[in-house]
């Protein structure tokens, strides 16, 4: 417990705690989602300490072993411990998920808010460009990016990030457009604030809350996109421990003879994305005044 130096922080703590408790009470599903997210995050951050085995070391004495006390989730075809690979894979998933969601999201945020604020020709042109990008299916776009630059974590992130931008910009633009009409933006303009100040200080923060919630969904979608790319052989590559990669090859080859190789990484993906979605949904419900009781 921190030493209380004044009353204010205590109050803040308490309000935080009440808010958190209130959230848990009203959003049991969301709390469950949050728990999943936290578990994933802990696994990803402290993989070195909690993973029982080296995730990349081949062990030819223990190939395709069923779950046992030695290997809780079994081993894959190279004799690598699945639990350890899943724990390390959480890191890869979160890195890919967060970086692509946030980079793509923020690029979309800037474009969306700018487009809405300036309107006119800029808006028109940006909208058309976004239309073009939107028309490319995400996976095709990613396919092209990987075909050009090759595989690897950075390229996979780029491949997922690029298609996220227009999707994000579109959503942000819509909400920014409504905020642009709000009197406090007019008040800021009459106070003679610069465009950048109005965009950054007045519009962004008000778009950002729903946007951040949207990002939690994007993190999940990015993790899924990585899995799909991996499935096509274009995602992260061996020996990097990554969930999508673990499903590639192994999932199909051993689905029948060593099903744990296919089942556990798939569950890890599904559960994590599930967690992010649940949490995001609940957060939106909790924050969106329209959905709150009157």
């Amino acid at each position, binding site marked *: 417990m921190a030493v209380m130096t004044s009353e204010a922080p205590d109050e803040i703590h308490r309000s935080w705690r009440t808010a958190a408790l209130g959230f848990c009470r009203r959003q049991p599903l969301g709390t469950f989602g949050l728990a999943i997210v936290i578990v994933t995050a802990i696994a990803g951050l402290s993989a070195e300490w909690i993973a029982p085995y080296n995730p990349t070391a081949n062990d030819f004495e223990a190939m395709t072993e069923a779950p046992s006390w030695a290997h809780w989730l079994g081993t894959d075809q190279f004799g690598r411990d699945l639990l350890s690979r899943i724990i390390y894979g959480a890191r890869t998933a979160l890195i890919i998920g967060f970086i692509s969601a946030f980079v793509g999201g923020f690029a979309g945020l800037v474009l969306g808010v700018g487009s809405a604020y300036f309107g006119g020709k800029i808006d028109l042109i940006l909208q058309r460009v976004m239309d073009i990008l939107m028309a490319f299916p995400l996976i095709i776009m990613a396919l092209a990016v990987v075909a050009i630059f090759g595989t690897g974590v950075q390229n996979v992130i780029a491949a997922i990030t690029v298609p996220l931008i227009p999707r994000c910009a579109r959503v942000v633009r819509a909400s920014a457009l409504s905020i642009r009409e*709000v*009197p*406090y933006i*007019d*008040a*800021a*303009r*009459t*106070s*003679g*604030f*610069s465009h950048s*100040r109005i965009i950054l*200080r*007045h519009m962004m*923060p*008000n778009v950002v*809350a729903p946007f951040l919630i949207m990002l939690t969904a994007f993190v999940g979608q990015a993790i899924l996109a990585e899995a799909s790319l991996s499935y096509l052989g274009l995602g992260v590559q061996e020996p990097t421990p990554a969930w999508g990669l673990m499903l590639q090859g192994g999932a199909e080859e051993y689905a029948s003879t060593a099903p744990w190789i296919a089942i556990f990484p798939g569950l890890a993906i599904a559960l994590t994305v599930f967690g992010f979605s649940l949490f995001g949904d609940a957060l939106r419900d909790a924050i969106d005044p329209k959905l709150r009781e009157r």
Partner: protein
Amino acid sequence: MTGIAMTDAGADRPLLEIKGLHMHFPISEGILMRRQVGEVKAVDGVDFSLRRGETLGLVGESGCGKTTTGRCILQLERPTSGAILYDGVDINTLSRSERLALRRRIQVIFQDPYSSLNPRMKVGDIVGEPIHVHGLAPDAARRRARVRELLQVCGLNPGFADRYPHEMSGGQRQRVGIARALALEPEFIVCDEAVSALDVSIQAQVINLLEDLRERFGLTYLFIAHDLSVVRHLCQRVAVMYLGRIVELADCDELFDNPLHPYTRALLAAVPVPDPVIEAGRNFQPVLGEVPSPINPPGGCVFHPRCPKAVESCRRMRPALRELRPGHWVACSEVS
């Protein structure tokens, strides 16, 4: 150009002078190749002026163009035509830096105390930001002191500086909005329906505050409102607008005691007074019809379809604003 001649010949030139203001919003169709298919004549030839220290009421029903007029003065819209002279200078001819300087002198108070404050900023920041941007306080400590002072002036506890708008009631928020407007030490404030969203018991508090501030800082108000009783209480002169035009303009008491334009009369008659006995004694006949669309306003006098006094010529002739009595201007051909 008739203009509004000053009744008080000895006064300085007006602080604000509006000449032939038109604001037409185009209605366009097509996404690729925009074609204009019509326009909303929100403001369609408005002239008036404001003396320093005066409060001019601008009344009318929704869609009459009173808010758009205010937005043009605030440079939130660029008028289609007409001139807005502030302190003798046409604001549309100003350079960027001059514009910025002018922004300081003209401020605004909005109607909705909920949406006019940025919900993500603390009250102290909302009020302090303009001071910061315009460099009106040398350092952060002075700025904070100034914010506290402004809050106090507006009847708020200076401790509210650390609160967020949603932690306050509607009346308190409106006071924050006023404090923000005062932060730049303006001389002219456009009050756009500044009290109409407030509850009756709070409304009076804010009206009193606005009056106090006017006296204390020598402010000039353009008071845009639809509530006639509030306008009567607060303003020295009143302009009545209908469909983008001013139909009557006079000193406050003159207008309320002796309304000339049929529309003004209808408006006044429509307002019920809080006294059952008086109401029981009134023989009340509401004006017929509704306000026509500003996209396609009627020709001639815009009020003629609803006017009990309308004659044939009203359909064709757009009546000019005439000064029937000293300082009392009316745009109606049928009154004298």
